[in-house]
């Protein structure tokens, strides 16, 4: 992993400056079944191709953002700040 990630705030920076929590997952809204809960906690699609992920500029501006990354060649196609679910930003 030596690619660069374009931070929406700082521009392209080496990947070592960031952390990621991996692909964006849909969090269940209602009390989920045991199966759905396990699925949410443990299961990853692990797509070969473009997936949307959470990234954090740990050694930079300390901002979380979303990135569309191609897991096959590590090209980061687009990054953006999350539009808050409450729509108040």
């Amino acid at each position, binding site marked *: *992993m*030596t*690619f*660069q990630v374009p931070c929406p705030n700082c521009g392209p920076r*080496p*990947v070592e400056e960031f*952390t990621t*929590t991996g692909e964006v997952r849909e*969090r*269940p809204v209602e*009390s*989920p079944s*045991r199966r759905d*809960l396990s699925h*949410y*906690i443990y299961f990853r699609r692990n797509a070969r191709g473009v997936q949307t992920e*959470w990234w*954090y500029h*740990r050694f930079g501006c*300390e*901002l*979380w*953002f979303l990135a569309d990354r191609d897991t096959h*060649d*590590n090209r980061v196609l687009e990054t953006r700040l*999350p*539009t*808050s*679910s*409450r*729509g*108040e*930003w």
Partner: protein
Amino acid sequence: MVSRLRAREDERIDRGRPVTFTFDGTAVRGFEGDTFGSAMYAEGRRVFSRSFKYHRPRGLVCCAGQCANCMATVDGRPNVRLCVEPIREGADVNGQNVLGSVDRDFLSAVDRFAGPFTPPGFYYKTFIRPRRLWPLYEKLLRNAAGLGKLNPEATREGRFEKEHRSVDVLVVGGGSEGLQAAIEAAQAGSSVALVDDGPEPGGALLLTESGDEPARALANKAREVGVELLCPARAVGVYEGNLVPIEYDNVLIRMRATEIVVAAGVVEQPLVFPGNDLVGVMLPGAASRLVRFWSIKPGERAVVITADDSGARAVETLKAAGVRVAATVDLRATMPETIVASGKKGRVTGVSIDGDSVRCDLVVASGSPQPAHALLSHAGARVDYDAGRGVFVPVEVPDGIRAVGGAAGDVGQPGLPRPSFGGSGSKAKEFVCICEDQTTKDLRYAHAEGYDSIELSKRYTTVTMGPCQGRLCHLNSVRLYAETSGTDESLIGTTTARPPWSPVSLEVLAGRPHEPARRTSMHDRHKKLGATMMWTGEWRRPYAYGDPAAEVRGVHEAVGIIDVSTLGKILVSGRDAATFLERIYPNRFGDMASGRIRYGVLTSDAGRITDDGTIARLADDTFYVTTTSTGAGAVVEWFEWWNAIWGYELDVVNVTGSLAAINVAGPDARALMERLVDIPVDADSFRYLDARQGHVAGVPSLLLRIGFVGELGYEIHFPSVQGEFLLDALVTEGADFGAVPFGLESQRVLRLEKAHILVGQDTDSESNLLEASMPWILKLDKGDFVGRWSAEQVKARGLETRLVGFRLKTDDLPVEGGQIVGDGQPVGRITSVRRSEAADAIIGLAWVPADKAVEGASFEARVDGELIPAEVTLEPFYDPDGERLRS
């Protein structure tokens, strides 16, 4: 015997500056500008090493740092390529991989006797039986295996750095095409750097009859237009994002380039014929370098066999150096059936071409020049076999990469040599891979055994896996495989090229050692007070100032002072702060009054405990959150992440570094505080779990009445810069009460007496709130929060294990992590254990089966191999009702 030619204008050596070193203890004299290899060759040395497996004598083959033949140990550093390593006064050079010396290696018996019996796979097949002898075999084999010896006692010498840089265009290779590409790019306004592994750029230009002049002119032009010339330096590989690590002396430059121009030229390929590894058989470039760079006469009588113009050039150079060229074969014109070299004591004495013998002491031979495509392959280019010219050429070079010159496949129209010239009769070994001592016979054998894919064959025979990394054997092995299997090379394909392309020393990769330490603002005072310091995560903290037991007594009986600046400290403020905390913590904060404090535990959505600390409400919309000493960063990230999803109106500020903190605890804590603070601290005005702002010794502070160590206590949070001042004030004023500074060890005893957990010590990545015996934290009657559903699941399935306190009926201290045994089986483990004077027992915390989590239940702990009875205690061991804490 010194075989230097007459001095020439553009030789690299400075004959006025002699340099002396030793090889295997014997002095060798060369000149400034020599390499170790050239100086040794000039003095008549021809054998430089012994081969990997058969211990055959080996001499210079490429003279360009590409093979393994001249590797030796220089000043204790193994595997140095003597042909390219600049000579150093007084250096101690030694042959390696020998028993004896490179001239008389007793291990060479392997060549004579074991040769026919050590085909590929020999070791796997032979030493598998009998099993019990494996340890012995292993020892012997390990001793014989590998190249060179590392000195495990060696320490770091010199200074190594990393540099992060970027340019518009990076050119790898300083031959004419590389220099020209660099000049053009610079003239077009780009920032350009060029890497070349020679002491000066020029590449193959330097080996032509016209001498140094054209190369020097180009290099000067490049400098003039602003190209940065990095040489001697080596591009290690091409990584994602056009990153090229460059080993440049003792610096590893991590160079990021918008465009990488690969101008690495070609790699001359050896011909495969019986005796092709004899000392004196070399590539045309090697002979030319000896003559042109160091004015050395490579031999007396030469035979030249090549597939392209390099032969004609070599003949010219050799003749100019006074070497008699006894025979020349241009494979474009004639293709012999057989070529067989014969020798004496490992040195070539003649070649027979289709049966015609020629006496010689030098064989200059090469096949089609192979484009040096490795860096392109790293970047993702494909290579295709060009059947007409017998080489692999790069295709589909990705964006941001460009290939020029030889590396791009521009190698003219070489003749197509036979995959091997051994014919059927010869018994002499013909080597495909000289690094790993693999012959045509070995490869055919592997193929016959069913290793019909080149990738499998590579792993089985180790061809291409030696120090040359396939430079001199990849093409030949593929061609031989194609011939053996009766298919063509494009079906055989290539093995995967991976970085590093050139060897890189671990010390350069490691760079400068960094072990960052965080110190609190009171660090120096602790040391003056006699503290022994210890690591906790990245922090340095006092372990103790003297006897930890005395410190514990001091806290219980008078008052203790501890620096807790390492606690994570986070301000959470904003309109939605309370809602946010309600949702991220399992416990409740919305109903908390300003000026009050609650203990909080963070869990993940999987219900696992991740951190703990206290949360003080400073105002309606402002909370002051503390975390574990190593957890601040992770908790801030966690908060920010969830809020990136939820989008509450909120600010999260990490104030860990800007604020220091001191905990003052003990029965006399109030009396001490009364002397220093400007707010009332009596039991009614400042209750347990109250948060107040005031001044301590004039320092603006946030005071939290909490009690991690189990006595009446005040945690003072204040600006870091006042750390020493406030500590001094407390120690001085506290003297009247017998105040003691205390360290981590006594804090651990004190908190254990209260059965307060340490996240990460008593919990691990599996621990949940219910099983960690903290059900009161969990507020399932509020709305959604992180970890809620998993907690519900644990509740529904029932508890399997529990974290409980215990007392031990022994005097021996078990180890933390020690086993808990039930019915002879391990059923749990001890997480914390200490001797407590206050409890007059050995006390601890342990994970036990859930049915043992009843007051007075007994279980057994393993202490030094013996089973010791222990008794479960659900209450704190000290002040179980918290009277002292609340007083």
